[in-house]
């Protein structure tokens, strides 16, 4: 087996805020392989975006990153800004939620894409122009040549996101991180953009990390899913395995809380009470314990580690769903 393209090992991100420490990412490990899609799923504050920004070294100065992020064998944690800049965009690119805010409103679309090409490649003006049109066609922006001279405000949200993807692809990245890239879009547009991303990934052989709060998106488009809660990975498996055999009660809670088309109208959703913990004052034990229906004293005292407990299926729970407790504990220790 070849080494993974990207490998996170025990990544921690702390923010210092007026005296106390907020641990936004707490011991995160995963791999991303080329031509595969990994979905990072979690709610606001689960650490999914912070962990992705740590990969890109896009965190503010107040953040302290420890642990390891290896890209093709190169350690990114502590890498100089100069060397990081060579990777960012060229090797690893990111698409964000709000295309309107990522684009410069005063520059024409074509200028913004060609600028991205010039940053990554030594090419002539004419070559950059041709490459920009090519990229616009690649992301299926209709009437690419006319769009070249338009400004961002003249485009719809979906079109703008296509421009952002074109810019992200300008340096031929091998890893693309899509951070809630379709969240602000309408459902039909979201589906079109997701289909585009999947198609591009297949054609270009990129690794794709999609960050989302939407388990439905993960089920539909990801090969592997990693569920995060309060800065930690709580369950990880191939998509089919995860959705077929949910083990972590938090994942089960997320799935139960989604309105489904198969449900009859007025079905009561399986809602768990409470709210995510305050990351500045985390008690010991499992972060989900205060809300978990399966909670015992053990959960409040000792945090369960994320461990491979069935082939290819990792979870962090003392009382996983769908298993006898005793059997689970044997494997889990």
């Amino acid at each position: 087996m070849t080494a993974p393209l990207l490998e996170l090992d025990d990544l921690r991100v702390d923010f210092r805020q007026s005296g106390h420490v907020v641990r936004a990412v707490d011991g995160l490990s995963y791999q991303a392989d080329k031509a595969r899609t990994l979905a990072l799923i979690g709610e606001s504050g689960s650490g999914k975006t912070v962990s992705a920004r740590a990969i890109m070294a896009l965190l503010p100065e107040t953040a302290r990153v420890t642990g390891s992020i290896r890209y093709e064998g190169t350690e990114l944690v502590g890498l100089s800004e100069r060397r990081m800049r060579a990777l960012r965009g060229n090797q690893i690119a990111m698409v964000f939620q709000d295309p309107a805010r990522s684009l410069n409103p005063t520059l024409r679309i074509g200028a913004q894409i060609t600028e991205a090409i010039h940053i990554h490649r030594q090419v002539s003006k004419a070559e950059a122009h041709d490459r920009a049109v090519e990229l616009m066609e690649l992301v299926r922006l209709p009437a690419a040549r006319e769009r070249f001279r338009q400004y961002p405000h003249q485009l719809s949200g979906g079109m703008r996101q296509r421009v952002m993807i074109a810019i992200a692809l300008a340096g031929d990245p091998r890893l693309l991180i899509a951070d809630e890239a379709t969240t602000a879009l309408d459902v039909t547009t979201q589906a079109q953009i997701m289909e585009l991303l999947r198609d591009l990934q297949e054609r270009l052989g990129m690794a794709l990390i999609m960050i989302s709060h939407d388990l439905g998106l993960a089920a539909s488009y990801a090969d592997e899913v990693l569920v995060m809660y309060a800065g930690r990975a709580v369950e990880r498996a191939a998509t089919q395995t995860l959705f077929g055999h949910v083990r972590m009660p938090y994942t089960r809670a997320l799935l139960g809380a989604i309105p489904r088309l198969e449900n009859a109208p007025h079905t009561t959703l399986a809602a768990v009470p409470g709210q995510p913990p305050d990351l500045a004052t985390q008690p010991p034990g499992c972060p989900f314990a205060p809300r978990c229906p399966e909670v015992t004293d053990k959960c409040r005292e000792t945090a369960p580690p994320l461990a491979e407990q069935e082939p290819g299926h990792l979870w962090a729970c003392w009382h996983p769903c769908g298993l006898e407790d005793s059997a689970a504990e044997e494997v889990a220790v």
Partner: protein
Amino acid sequence: MNELVLEVTDLVQEFILRDRGGGKAGVVHAVSGVSLELASGESLGLVGETGSGKSTLARAILQAPPPRSGSVRLRGVELVGLRGRRLIQARRHAQMVFQDPFGSLDPTWTVTRLVQEPLVAFRVGSAAERRRRAHELLELVGLDPVRYGNRRPRQLSGGQAQRVAIARALALDPSLIICDEAVSSLDVLIRAQVLNLLERLRTELHLAYLFIAHDLALVKQVSDRVAVMYLGKLVELGPAEALYRRPLHPYTVALLASIPSPDPEAPREPVTGTIRGEPPSPIDPPSGCRFRTRCPRAQDLCASQEPPMRQLADGHFAACHFPVNADAPAPEATAMSH
């Protein structure tokens, strides 16, 4: 159950765009002839994408601002044409809950004061009675009045703030609650809590809901009937079960195909086959059927003739010349002016 809370007939809302000199530069056809009814205790879901006019419709129902034409009857009282105090009195039976709870709550007020405010505005009860009622309302929405009553909005989470907004909306015992993307900005688990709360309140207080959202699965969860809006027009209206099982309008089909299923085994058709491109501008909507420029079934007729809303199954209407899943009666047949 048959008593109508809301009757909207042929509602039109347009906004005139001005150029720099103040001349007329165009008209935004935001809502173009929408009719719908809502019975007491009934929940009607209204789905549509950005720019479909669903929020404008909600505001036009509440006369904020009043529509260009059409009729809105709330508990039998015509709202269109009412002004000042008479409008305010008539409108109190309908309350709205918005997407951003923090945007609709004064950040300097305490929770108790926020919930009491509608009672003060309508001079309901004495100060002590209002305080008691506010506590009752907070308990009803699942917030402990002792713990939360003296907090200010910034000391609340998004879910808690939305509960306060709901308590406020309930203060005047309305018959109708209009939820405009009321749970869209909440995280999955909190959203489920608030959705369950809304369901419980509806049955306990016999409320009617007009539930506006872009998420079809979510709308199905709370609705007896569902209306689908596209570019200012209703394109389909029917019982929730039937509309999702046998959608009639190609736009509804595309919306349903776009929803990512949380089941990875679920068969998935590429959306590209059901819809193309993005919505045209409401300033210059397409002739005939407004969906035709994106519709895979469009034919010449769709450009020349606007399809009327027709009843194609029991209580199930669609405005389409070539409906899906219907035993396609000829376009001329059974035209309805619903």
